[in-house]
């Protein structure tokens, strides 16, 4: 955010020639590094380093009441924190519209794809497991949507399932894994200097015109979100949807690779 005019010009010129930082392709991700279980106290956790973007996701589960419209299911709550330590433009205080959008888009991707098998989180009449997904942005360098989604799905995929015995929650010992129903990931594209690219870094994002996040599993689009003040044509949307299916194969493999079984 707020890169200098000269840097912007430099990046613009290079993009029009089809060149990105580190020789990266227009449709490729930066290096993805996932570390699972960094926070053993949490039911699940994953830290992702996507280039210089660093997001930590923690999963906690508590016993609570099911949502009123879904009395036989567990519930999911997703929150995002753009921590003031992560970027000079982030302030302390109530969540900004950006943070709320991030949390809700990641949440919709996870919810719509049934990544968590919420039916198995029902305990008894009036009681179910509530899953809290907290997205902690530790260093901002663009593309929070994909990094947070990837880390959240990886964290869930490796979460333990606490037990509820005699009104008590048991979070340690020999526990099963959180029941997973599906795997989905997201790809976020942006138009920068007239070129459509995947996975914008912070400086590209600074002057991107429009953004599109597409979450999908193997067969279906599960969530989409257009962002920023620009626009896409219907034909461009079709193409991006197609591209996201191809790309998501790699991402699902990364997630699957985090689990030994």
């Amino acid at each position, binding site marked *: 955010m707020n890169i200098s005019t000269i840097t912007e010009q430099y990046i613009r010129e290079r993009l029009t020639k089809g060149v990105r930082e580190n020789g990266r392709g227009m449709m490729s991700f930066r290096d993805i590094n996932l570390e699972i279980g960094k926070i053993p106290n949490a039911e699940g956790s994953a830290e992702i380093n996507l280039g210089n973007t660093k997001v930590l996701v923690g999963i906690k589960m508590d016993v609570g009441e099911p949502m009123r*419209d*879904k*009395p*036989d299911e567990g519930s999911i709550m997703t929150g995002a924190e753009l921590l003031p330590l992560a970027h000079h433009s982030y302030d302390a205080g109530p*969540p900004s*519209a*950006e943070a*709320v*959008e991030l*949390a*809700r888009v990641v949440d*919709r*991707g996870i*919810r*719509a794809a*049934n990544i968590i098998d919420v039916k198995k989180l029902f305990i008894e009449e009036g009681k179910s497991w509530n899953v809290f997904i907290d997205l902690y942005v530790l260093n901002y360098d663009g593309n929070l949507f994909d990094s947070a989604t990837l880390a959240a799905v990886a964290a869930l995929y490796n979460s333990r399932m606490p037990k509820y015995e005699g009104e008590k929650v048991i979070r340690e010992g020999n526990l099963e894994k959180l029941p997973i129903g599906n795997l989905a990931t997201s790809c976020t594209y942006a138009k920068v200097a007239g070129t459509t690219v995947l996975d914008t870094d912070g400086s590209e994002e600074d002057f991107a015109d429009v953004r*599109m996040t597409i979450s999908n599993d193997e*067969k*279906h*689009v*599960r*969530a*989409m*979100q*257009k*962002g*920023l*003040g*620009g*626009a*896409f*044509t*219907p034909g461009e*949307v*079709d193409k991006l*949807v*197609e591209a996201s*299916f191809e790309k998501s194969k790699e991402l699902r493999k990364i997630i699957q690779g985090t689990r030994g079984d």
Partner: protein
Amino acid sequence: MGNSANKPELIIDGRRLDGRTPEQLRQIKITANPIRNAAGSAFIEWGNNKILAAVYGPREALPKHTQDPNRAVIKCRYTMAPFSSLEEHGRPGMNRRAIEISKVTREVFENVILTDLFPGNEISIFIEVLQSDGGTRAAGITCASVALAASGIPMRDMPFAVSVGKASDTLIIDMNKIEDNYSNADMPVAINPRTKEINLLQMDGELTPEEVHRGLEMIQKAGETITKIQREALKAPYEKVNEKYKASI
């Protein structure tokens, strides 16, 4: 979405619960300028939705740190009245859903308003949902578009919005609340009718790439009707004057 308990059949013999065909919009009625204090305003009745939109500005952007020396900043606030839904009393003001809708709505109008004509200024768009029955963000955008046009703020297009959903395997346009609750997908979209550009697109649920494509086509087709209603709402007050004038000569 995907609530399986007591799921009603959303389509029987090709007709929806309220008798519509899959491609049929609800009744839409728009009135321009009901709020006299605003620079421009509009009231939309879209099915059972009743939504007011009002525009203030261009005016000095305050607090001062929000000013942009190169262009006007757009501020947008979408809220639902606590009495607006058929369910329990809601909380007034902004919840997380409202914050997100306000943001994506703002982005729609950032795309069309010629903001560089008003550096240092703000243009505020207020959307108040008074009664809701599904599809309020789309109806709110369609309504705010008319309010902006009525205010005379220069725009390069007049967006409309509508959502497409999926009931079982059928794509249906403009879902009401019940359909929204039990559908397999929801995709609200806003489009600039002149250039066909998509300036809002959200989706959740389950759609194949082919369904996304067809859904966008259905939305464009429905847009022809919506755009016409928007334009007629803007013309209506002047036509009345015109008739009076004709009668007097």
